[in-house]
């Protein structure tokens, strides 16, 4: 085999592989453009502001108000982060600063299981355990009205469990990267373990913690099936934790069969997907760029 041939082969491989890589880069852009083209009809009919600020959703009467879905998404995501953030921070601090190896051996597999379970299983668990818990135990405490249990709270709780393993693994990675010298310096000044963890480890990782939370939010925004199964699916703006809600992904998933009956309806759902796509990309880019910068500095 001549060397010429080998070099040509190498060059061809370079070309093919860079082509594959570039295609996958361009794919992000194509996806955005495709969703945008599909949502043009609805954007021509209604202004962007009108779409996201109106709360009347009657597709067959040409009413496309996304406010209930946008608010539903925001509510559920917020609740999930509020529950998951302290839990995962404490777990991560425990794992990196306190836990003995023998304890870690049990905690990591448990987190692994949480991370590997499919979203539909969380949904099944939510309908069996969380929904009745809310309707029988929690809701009667706060109001005399009957609650089905399919609420913002149920969706937030289920979602927070799904975020937990993601957040913990991101936090652990950050905390492990804090140099031991800093901890030693804090101890030598007489700081307790907790003071060191709080004032040195967590403080040093704050930008990373911020980025991780943003990343978790973007994961939460797109979660579909688990949320769909416990959220109640009422197209109304939720007023409290015990109201039903209807986040954007659930809306898309629930109506894909129906939407073909009306061109504008299809366009509206694609607009919902576009909205999700743009927000998730912005959140993702922000957090990834921050995380990459941190990684580089270490």
């Amino acid at each position, binding site marked *: 085999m001549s060397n010429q041939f*080998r*070099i040509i*082969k*190498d060059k061809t491989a*370079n070309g093919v*592989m860079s082509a*594959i*890589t570039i295609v*996958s*880069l361009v*794919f*992000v852009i194509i*996806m955005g453009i*495709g*969703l945008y083209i599909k949502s043009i009809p609805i954007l021509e009919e209604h202004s962007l502001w009108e779409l996201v600020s109106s709360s009347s959703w009657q597709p067959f009467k040409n009413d496309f108000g996304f406010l209930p879905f946008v608010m539903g998404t925001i509510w559920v995501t917020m609740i999930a982060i509020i529950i998951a953030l302290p*839990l995962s921070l*404490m*777990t991560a601090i425990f794992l990196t600063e*306190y836990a003995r190896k023998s304890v870690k051996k049990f*905690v990591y597999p448990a987190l*692994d*299981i*949480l991370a*590997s379970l*499919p*979203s*539909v*299983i969380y949904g*099944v*668990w939510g*309908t*069996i*355990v969380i929904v009745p818990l809310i309707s029988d135990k929690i809701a009667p405490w706060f109001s005399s009205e009957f609650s089905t249990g399919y609420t913002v709270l149920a969706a937030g709780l289920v979602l927070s*469990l799904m975020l*937990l393993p993601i957040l913990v693994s991101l936090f652990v990675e950050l905390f492990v990267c804090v140099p031991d010298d800093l901890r030693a310096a804090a101890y030598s000044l007489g700081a*307790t*373990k*907790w*003071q060191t*963890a*709080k004032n040195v480890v967590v403080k040093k990782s704050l930008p990373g913690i911020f980025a991780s939370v943003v*990343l978790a939010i*973007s*994961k939460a*925004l*797109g979660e*579909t*099936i688990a949320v769909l199964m416990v959220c109640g699916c009422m197209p109304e703006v939720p007023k409290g934790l015990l109201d039903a809600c209807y986040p954007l992904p659930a809306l898309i*998933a629930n109506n*894909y069969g129906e939407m073909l009956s009306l061109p504008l309806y299809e366009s509206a*759902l*694609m607009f919902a*997907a576009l909205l*999700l796509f743009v927000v*998730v*990309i912005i959140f*993702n*880019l922000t957090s*990834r760029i921050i995380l*990459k910068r941190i990684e580089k500095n270490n």
Partner: protein
Amino acid sequence: MKSSVIFEKIAKAFMYLSIAIVFVMVASIIWTIFKRGFGCITWEMVSSLPGGGFYIGKEGGFLNATVGSLYIVLSSTLLGLIISVPIVFYLNVFLSQKSKRAYWTRLAFDVLYGIPSIVYGAFAFTIMIYMGLRTSLLGGIIVITLLIIPILVRSMDEVARNFPRDLLEASFSLGATRLETIGVVLRQIAPGIATATLLSIGRAIGDAAGVMFTAGFSDSIPTTLSQPAATLPLSIFFQLSAPQAEVQNRAYAAALVLTIIVLIISLAGRFITNRFSKHKLN
């Protein structure tokens, strides 16, 4: 007692509480799924196709969904590997560690990884309508392939990045071209490829939002790529929304099957990581 000591105690209590919550939740999920699932699973459910009147509680099983899921997952994993292994190889051998293109590619895959599967599904659906395709096995395979490529690339890349550069240089110094070092690289990152594959199988088999639009649903096992295919997560979802207890029971049984598959895959992944990291030098 000094306040710092009290805070230490309080903080520790909260940590133990967090860990306890994690364990209780994992136990609750597994216990619920297993108890419900084993309570109603029968051999007929696992081994037969839906019969007449399946969705009002008559006889039949969810074999269509299990087989559909396997078809989609296995073929998309294979396709995904064929596309992503060259990308990882290109990123780590053909491009230098500090190149701008490598940085942007990695960032793009991070972003692709973050895009929700429902958006992939909706996008693929519009493309399929544009091309005049109906929901089909092929559509499901394509969407799941797109969904797992970022997972595969990211997790293989993580292993390949720590690949000792000396080995590359040794290979080059013997006169090998960049392409010819592929054997050296592949052998070194083999465990990484295995765990990445398992990770993406786990993700692919549990995905419902992507296949909902593209693979559709069907009561029979597809025999060609153009027929719609059922999947386990969707089968669980549809059956659970039925009002009859018999149909819901089958959803619990299907959930049990899915959970067991996923747990086995996750255990295998852990086993491979432990086993091969023993021989790692750094």
